[in-house]
């Protein structure tokens, strides 16, 4: 059924169609509307047998989800930003214990300095914790990915994060096609846990494992995640057939046929990137796009195959590994290592700075001429940065950096 609704509402309705049995809720922007809507749906009796638990923190949200999942319940929660960080220890536990929890991350920057706006720093900071990470391009894909995520999580007995851009998607009203309960039921089987705490057949979950077996357990965690690389495309195809639209998969090629320059990106910015690339193509530029739908596990083969014909690659990413540069680009470089292909890294949209088509076309044009620095910060005010650095060189007690940058930014320009 076609609806014009907010992204958060769309995700909440999709999660409800997945018949969750435990929902742990703790508010944090920009995720709050999702659990609020789910709370309303549970209170109205629209989700059958489901317990909605208000917890006291994000750490508790994940801990309760772990307990619920270990007891055999289909468990869901959502968070963002510092909330995800506060869960960090429990995230590793959920993955290490192999519990198929599904969580929405409404992507947001990490402080300090305090910033409530969108970028990908939060989920990127947890990329190695053992969770599968899927990234949504639109609200339609966000809701579709949740339906796929429960099936994937439960088949592999691994937790799945569905990442969607905070505010840009969560707070956007756009058209979505909401599936019926029958469609979702036909795609997503009843939860049959691979492990469960059952008084009738007692087991322990969470044993201490010493050096004699820890490597093997970790190897299996890796091997199990890599199994997702075959399951994800297979189920994306099945989903496409059953629901009549493409969603998910490992990577999403766009206009790649003869592309010499390929832009790699994740999440909602892909829409703006495609619009930018269409205009450049109309001007004769051989340029294409590769969307990464599945970031963890990293789809080595699919990325290598899709970038096989590229003469240069631009990785556009909303996160920064301080002291390194890009995060996604590091993965792309590893994938392409055998070939001498330049991989340019464009860091953009940090802390909610708008990524405009005009700015993108400028850096893409520089890349096409191989005139781009290996790492570029989109729309960086280099003069401002230089003034702040100069002040540091001149003054010992130069003061706090963020405040200094704000002072420069809001300074009245000399006339």
């Amino acid at each position: 059924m076609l609806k014009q609704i907010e992204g958060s509402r769309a995700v909440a309705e999709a999660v409800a169609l997945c018949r969750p049995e435990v929902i742990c809720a703790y508010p944090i922007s920009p995720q709050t509307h999702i659990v609020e809507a789910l709370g309303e749906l549970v209170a109205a009796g629209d989700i059958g047998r489901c317990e909605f638990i208000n917890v006291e923190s994000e750490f508790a949200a994940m801990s309760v989800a772990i307990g619920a999942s270990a007891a055999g319940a289909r468990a869901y929660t959502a968070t963002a930003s510092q909330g995800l960080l506060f869960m960090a220890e429990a995230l590793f536990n959920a993955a290490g214990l192999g519990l198929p929890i599904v969580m929405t991350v409404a992507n947001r920057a990490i402080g300090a300095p305090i910033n409530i706006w969108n970028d990908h720093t939060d989920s990127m900071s947890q990329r190695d914790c053992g969770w599968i990470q899927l990234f949504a391009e639109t609200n339609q894909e966000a809701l579709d990915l949740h339906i796929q995520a429960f099936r994937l999580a439960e088949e592999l007995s691994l937790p799945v994060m569905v990442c969607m851009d905070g505010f840009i998607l969560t707070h956007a009203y756009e058209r979505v096609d909401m599936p019926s309960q029958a469609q979702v039921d036909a795609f997503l089987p009843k939860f049959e846990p691979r492990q469960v705490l059952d008084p009738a057949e007692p087991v322990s979950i969470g044993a201490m494992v010493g050096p004699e077996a820890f490597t093997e357990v970790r190897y299996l965690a890796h091997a199990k995640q890599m199994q997702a690389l075959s399951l994800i495309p297979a189920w994306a195809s099945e989903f496409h057939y059953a629901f009549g639209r493409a969603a998910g998969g490992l990577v999403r090629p766009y206009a790649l046929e003869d592309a010499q320059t390929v832009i790699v990106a994740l999440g909602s910015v892909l829409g703006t990137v495609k619009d930018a690339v269409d205009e450049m193509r109309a001007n004769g530029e051989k340029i294409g796009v590769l969307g990464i739908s599945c970031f963890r596990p990293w789809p080595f083969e699919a990325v290598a195959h899709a970038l096989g014909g590229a003469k240069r690659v631009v990785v556009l990413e909303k996160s920064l590994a301080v002291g390194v540069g890009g995060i996604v680009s590091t993965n792309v470089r590893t994938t392409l290592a055998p070939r001498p292909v330049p991989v340019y890294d464009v860091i953009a949209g940090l802390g909610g700075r708008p990524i405009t088509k005009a700015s993108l076309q400028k850096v893409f044009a520089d890349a096409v001429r191989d005139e781009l620095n290996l790492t570029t910060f989109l729309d960086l005010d280099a003069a401002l940065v230089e003034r702040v650095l100069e002040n540091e060189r001149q003054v010992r007690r130069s003061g706090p950096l963020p405040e200094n940058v704000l002072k420069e930014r809001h300074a009245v320009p000399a006339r």
Partner: protein
Amino acid sequence: MFQVRIHGRGGQGVVTAAEMLSIAAFREGKHAQAFPSFGSERTGAPVVAYCRIDEKEIRLREPVMQPDALIIQDPTLLHQVDVFAGLAPGGTILINTSRSFEQLGLKELIHRFRTCTVPASELALKHVGRPLPNAALLGGFCALSESISLDAVVAAIREKFSGRVAEGNAAAAAAAHQHVAKEIHAEAD
């Protein structure tokens, strides 16, 4: 693609206005995307929301920087924010005020843009009982821009609100529509 930017203050239903406009466009079979300019929401602080309308899927996610139409929910913003920034030549401006463009000191805009004012807060006070101008402005906007029908806007109002609030806002939208239609007619004569 038709792009609308709505300026107002926190508490005036700016974001809801953009959302209702997108619902109205959706009801007319169009693709629409509504989103706020995200910030720390505070009552009274300047707020901006956007709505894009198109016949095909909208992929662009940048803020609306060159709007085809502006709805200004609070005329005091004229002295605080560059509300007219980027407005396309010949674009539409609707301002919530009981005064005219001349009285607002905006006479020079009349010839460059399609302009009108409507006392939306007063109409809302009369029909809804609270001076929340957003729904009324959308009604007026239908008459001015002709990009969307009053019926679709009223349906969107009923989707967002219920009961007496919905009916009051629908009546305010209809009254604003009538007001703007009359103004345009008077101008044409």
